């Protein structure tokens, strides 16, 4: 290896192209430095720095939105920049910002170190951005593992609470198992793609580059080793999005984790999984005859399981976890439909936006209603919410209505776009299952709304005792502004989504 070769390799490292990722990671490091440098009584300002810093990054990213959209490969083909990548960058930055805001509310009730929470949330968000833009299996694996290991820590963050730790352990075992399966799948694909006997002309970019894998699958779509590899890689990704049969961790981990982290898992981890799945679906496109049946069975089973299991839940965190499983099923239908018509992906992206907005509205309310033990949030704790906290109840109703897909709200448009794509792709069986799932889901979402809006009969409190119920956290103005914006966004995106859909379609 001579010097000029190294120089030409280094010339491809365009650090400026990693705009939101690199500053986000640096901001995360800055928080740790601030914790060392600042005197103890000024530590309260560190979360403010985290939130304002992310807000500034978001504004800078939106101003420069067009600039990062040119399709190009950087870092010797490790990263592929694209408009889709730019979309996911915005999505993950918004997620990270909202998780930090909820984190402030939730951490105020705990005696825990604060700074590391924001640090890890930001590092994980940066890794998610890299994950959906990766163009090489090494980059893919390392980014995915950064996300996963970060989530192990975040899920068990409230380490004085045994439930949080138990959830962390369950996520650890399941996450490591899925990573190992994904890794073995990558190795088998590498073994097939790199085989000199099958690709005599040699590979330009190495056997783990996505372009090489796709080129190999075009030439040998029924290579047995590669097919086993594809199924294992898809299984690993299915763990992340919580699709059946890899959903067993979802209710337990969502219940035990701190509520802001539950939101991060539900929105961020799922969106990252779908971003990765969309990239991989393109790479594996030559093996359609294998991938489509696998994903279709997963999608149907996921929708039915998620909705039926959510029917019997009284703990709201388990309920939202299982309903999240069913949302993964609807999104999977969109990914399958994209094999017949690539425009279906805009439906998937719009659904992700609507899901983000609605979920964070609901999780924001959950964070405020919860007590110190965040695993213990039952439907009955929501009794009389509409009377005591009309603002929270209104946000909750809009969020849940959007998740259920009630017409004027954003969730309805998302479902409509995916169902229309499925209809024009001819996926009638899946479409039937999905419509059935939506009907079932209305039952449990409205059960929750009913618990919050209509007062149930209770034993009158004995004289001299305060009325039963959890000490609800008062809503501070930043949370009020955020929740209000999310609720308004759900309504506005439902009524008027012209430019957004135009932009999503034009990509």
């Amino acid at each position: 290896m001579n010097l000029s070769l190294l120089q030409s390799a280094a010339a491809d490292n365009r650090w400026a192209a990693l705009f939101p990722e690199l500053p986000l990671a640096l901001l995360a490091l800055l928080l740790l430095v601030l914790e060392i440098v600042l005197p103890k009584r000024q530590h309260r300002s560190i979360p403010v720095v985290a939130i304002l810093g992310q807000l500034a990054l978001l504004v800078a990213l939106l101003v420069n939105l067009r600039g990062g959209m040119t399709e190009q490969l950087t870092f010797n083909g490790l990263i592929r920049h694209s408009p889709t990548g730019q979309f996911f960058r915005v999505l993950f930055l918004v997620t990270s910002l909202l998780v930090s805001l909820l984190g402030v509310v939730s951490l105020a009730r705990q005696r825990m170190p604060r700074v590391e929470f924001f640090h890890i949330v930001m590092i994980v968000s940066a890794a998610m951005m890299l994950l959906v833009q990766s163009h090489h299996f090494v980059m893919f694996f390392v980014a995915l593992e950064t996300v996963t290991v970060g989530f192990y820590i975040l899920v068990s963050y409230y380490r004085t609470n045994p439930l949080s730790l138990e959830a962390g352990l369950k996520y650890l075992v399941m996450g490591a198992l899925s990573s190992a399966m994904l890794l073995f799948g990558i190795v088998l694909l590498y073994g097939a793609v790199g085989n000199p006997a099958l690709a005599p002309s040699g590979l330009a970019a190495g056997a783990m580059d996505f372009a090489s894998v796709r080129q190999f699958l075009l030439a040998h779509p029924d290579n047995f080793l590669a097919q086993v590899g594809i199924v294992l890689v898809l299984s690993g990704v299915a763990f992340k999005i919580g699709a059946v049969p890899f959903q067993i961790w979802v209710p337990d981990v969502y219940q035990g984790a701190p509520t802001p982290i539950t939101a991060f898992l539900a929105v961020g981890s799922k969106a990252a999984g779908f971003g990765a799945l969309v990239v991989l679906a393109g790479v594996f496109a030559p093996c359609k005859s294998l991938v489509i049946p696998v994903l279709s069975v997963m999608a149907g089973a996921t929708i039915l399981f998620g909705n039926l299991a959510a029917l019997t839940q009284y703990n709201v965190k388990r309920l939202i976890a299982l309903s999240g499983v069913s949302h993964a099923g609807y999104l999977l239908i969109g990914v399958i439909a994209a094999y017949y018509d690539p425009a279906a992906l805009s439906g998937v992206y719009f659904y992700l936006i609507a899901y983000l907005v609605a979920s964070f509205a609901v999780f924001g309310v959950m964070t405020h209603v919860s007590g110190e033990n965040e695993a213990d949030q039952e439907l009955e704790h929501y009794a009389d919410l509409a009377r005591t906290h009309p603002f929270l109840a209104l946000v909750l109703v809009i969020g849940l209505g959007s998740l259920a897909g009630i017409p004027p709200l954003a969730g309805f448009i998302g479902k409509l776009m995916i169902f229309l794509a499925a209809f024009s792709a001819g996926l009638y069986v899946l479409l039937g299952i999905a419509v059935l799932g939506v009907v079932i889901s209305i039952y449990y979402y409205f059960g929750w709304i009913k618990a919050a809006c209509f007062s149930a009969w209770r034993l009158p409190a004995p004289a001299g005792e305060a009325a039963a119920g959890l000490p609800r956290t008062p809503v501070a103005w930043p949370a009020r502004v955020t929740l209000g914006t999310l609720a308004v966004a759900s309504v506005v995106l439902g009524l008027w989504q012209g430019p957004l859909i135009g932009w999503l379609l034009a990509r």
Partner: protein
Amino acid sequence: MTIGLNDYITLSVILFALGFLGVLLRKNTLVIYMCLELMLVASTLALVAFSRFHGMLDGNVFVFFILTVAAAEVAVGLAIIVALFRRRQTVQVDELNALRD
């Protein structure tokens, strides 16, 4: 007798299957954790064998990344297991069932 690619891959698949079954069947969290590491090592073995027989180095380089990731995973995982043991005085999976329907 020469040892060929197939022998390495067979060994790797056997190790992977042993690890997988261990995760599903064993009850002690630490043993489960060792089985998870066994699965990673099985992948590494196959990767090195493929890399050698393809005559390319990129597989060997990937092994370093896998080792680093595995080390990070162990550091976090053992910390969680120790913290859990301090709270619950057990690492048996069937006794850690506070979260369920």
